[in-house]
């Protein structure tokens, strides 16, 4: 029992519940099923990106370029859809993923083969990918009326009155869960992040794993590129700007250690949910814009502190009590 109470994921879950209840008291409208389902929809992209960022953080790296990657992929398919509105939507989705993956592979190659440190690489591609959006779009926006109906329809699909985005996030959660916990690839990511020197001895090819992790991060950024433009029905140079920081804080709140090798998939999702909840809840209880930022920062910090405090070392029993 004590073990469950001290479990990081459980604590995070409790914090989420407490916030939900507190906000519910202040504004009962916030905890209606409709409103909660809106929050979930709103957080889905964050969940997907946090999960893919987690893969990178597990191996002691970070992908700062995800938001730019998302925006560039989204812009490219939006531009294409204005020229070829007749193409089916899955075509655009696949293309967006391919573009995203390619951008991710470029990150991976720069880090693994060219040995440019990951911070430098992804900070660089953060600006480069963002800059390319200006280049391809001439700084113009693609507006909702320019997208084909087909392009936007999928996002409005609902099942059990929950949105497509939400269900997609659930699918991604399951995929990443299985990938990280039940495949050799996933387990080797943990070993590489936990002890890179030792991973060499057991034959984990570090470069291969770096490139794979960044490709996956790129793939999901690309996927979210489509999701983002379709959901907000607009593609501009500014979309998702700064979103990489939200994604990384979701991971950190979720207990994914930036030292590598530690973190659960469930924790990551809960971290994203907590952040999504705060962002939605604070406006709902009439807190001024300025305080919103400060409060959400404080809650994030608090979650992290509670999280690390519970990470206590268990001691071996030597003596049988007599």
């Amino acid at each position, binding site marked *: 029992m004590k073990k469950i109470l001290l479990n990081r994921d459980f604590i995070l879950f409790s914090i989420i519940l407490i916030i939900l209840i507190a906000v519910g008291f202040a504004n009962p409208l916030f905890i209606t099923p409709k409103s909660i389902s809106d929050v979930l929809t709103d957080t889905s992209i964050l969940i997907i990106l946090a999960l893919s960022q987690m893969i990178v953080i597990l191996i002691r790296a970070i992908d700062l370029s995800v938001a730019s990657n998302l925006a560039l992929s989204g812009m490219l398919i939006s531009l294409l859809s204005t020229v070829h509105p007749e193409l089916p939507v899955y075509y655009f989705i696949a293309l967006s993923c391919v573009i995203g993956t390619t951008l991710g592979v470029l990150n991976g190659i720069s880090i693994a083969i060219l040995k440019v440190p990951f911070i430098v690489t992804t900070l660089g591609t953060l600006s480069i990918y963002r800059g390319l959006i200006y280049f391809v779009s001439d700084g113009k926006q693609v507006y909702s009326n320019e997208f084909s109906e087909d392009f936007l329809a999928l996002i409005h699909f609902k099942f059990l009155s929950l949105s497509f985005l939400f269900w997609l996030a659930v699918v991604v959660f399951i995929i990443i869960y299985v990938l990280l916990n039940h495949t050799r690839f996933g387990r*080797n990511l943990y070993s590489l992040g936990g002890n890179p020197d030792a991973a060499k001895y*057991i*034959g984990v090819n570090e470069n291969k794993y770096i490139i794979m992790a960044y490709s996956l991060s790129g793939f999901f950024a690309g996927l979210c590129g489509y999701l983002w433009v379709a959901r907000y029905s607009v593609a501009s140079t500014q979309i998702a700007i700064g979103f990489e920081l939200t994604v990384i804080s979701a991971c950190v709140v979720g207990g994914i250690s930036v030292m590598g090798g530690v973190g659960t998939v469930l924790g990551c999702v809960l971290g994203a949910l907590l952040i999504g909840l705060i962002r939605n809840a604070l406006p709902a209880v009439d807190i001024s814009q300025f305080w919103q930022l400060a409060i959400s920062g404080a809650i994030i910090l608090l979650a992290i502190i509670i999280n690390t405090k519970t990470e206590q070392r268990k*001691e*071996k029993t*030597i*003596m049988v009590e007599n």
Partner: protein
Amino acid sequence: MKLELKNISKNFHGVKALQNVDFQLQENSIHALLGENGAGKSTLVKILCGVYQPDSGIINLNNKQQSIPDPSASLSLGISAIHQESVMFDELSVTENVFIGNHITKSNGLVDWGLMQDKTNQLLKDLEANIEPNEKIKDLSIAQRHIVQISRSLIHDADIVIMDEPTASLSQKEINELYTIIRNLKKQDKSIIFISHKLDEVIEVCDDFTVLRDGELIKSDTIQNTNKDQLITYMAGREVNQIFPKNNVTIENEIFEVRNLFKKTQFKDINFNLRKKEILGFYGLVGSGRTEIMKSIFGITKLDEGEILFKDQKILIRKPSDAIDQGIVYLSEERQQLGMTGLMSVKDNINMAVMDRNSNFYVMNKLKEIKNSSAMQEKLNIKVSYWSQLTQSLSGGNQQKTVIAKWLSTKPEVLILDEPTKGIDVRSKSAVHEFMGELVEEGMSIMMISSELPEILGMCDRVVVMYKGLIKDILNVKEASSEQIVKLASGES
């Protein structure tokens, strides 16, 4: 012939770690690979494991020439190794550490946790190890980690099992169990390469031996044709007297005492005292609570109850720096993790804890530093290839000696040593013992945890024997017999 190495050479930036070494491993045999610290043993192992590539030379496996480009190639050729440095993943479970890099998968490609768990459980039972497969490695003691490493190499079902100092931190009982395992492996038609500095044991279990010195092959033969003294001479290049120097000092008044130390689930009713110029030994099975007591005396962990008296004054130690300020120093068993900074030179490591003594008004006095470190280096026979060599690229034994030198430099009043000579060669071992003798003469008092009975009997004045967190007895070494001590330590009588 199972395995044959011909003319293997390996350089590290001009350091000749191996020069034209030949090595032959017979089918179904236990082969001892011997040599002093820095002789090149681990380098040879790493070449066989695909961690290093030889600069020249060939490897024949089952009479077929092979190259071993990476660790997975080595595994698939049926070679598996327990390395000298820990190849463990702290945050992962025991099961996973056993199977790491080699997870069992189901037909659908997913990892078969259930089966791995069962196999680990079975293996740990066979080894009579009291370890839960679900536990994280970071919660295990050093000896238990060792057992996990051993399990890992057993699970691979390799033809050739290499053990680079597997017994360094085990006590006699566990060592005997390990030998049973090794002999069983041999019965299953496997070949074993065994690296150890404990020559008595080597002679007992091994069939053949190869001695390296400074990267060169000195001698290879069957064990029957040699004896301990000859092996030492091969290794050192000259005769070495390895008698434990009895310290003939007059023991003075009590300087340090603990009363009723108690820590939940760890130890209780711990009472002992230490007199000036005394060496007090601590003997017991690995995991009997010796290290835990010292850690809490030194302030690394917290005591639940009990008092510590130093020079008849009650003292409060909340953190290690409190103890150091009092003049009490603890040389941890986990030296590589806790004791050294791998990216510093040997000199800087040795001087790290005595910076204030070697400085004038906060400016480091280089001359004093160099004097101190070279004196230590010479005394403990620390072998570096060039003066600025980073500590992390030293051989395992030389890293150990560096940390010992660092703490001995502080010249404390009470020195706590935890397995001070594990993993270091015979010659350096007697150097450490001699040094301990000198320190005591100068007025230091020492508490020494050791799992080597000869070391305890040779060096100590009294010995505290522990079993499962309790002190069984405190014996005068002169009057105690080794059987008596071993019996007490295993809970009999």
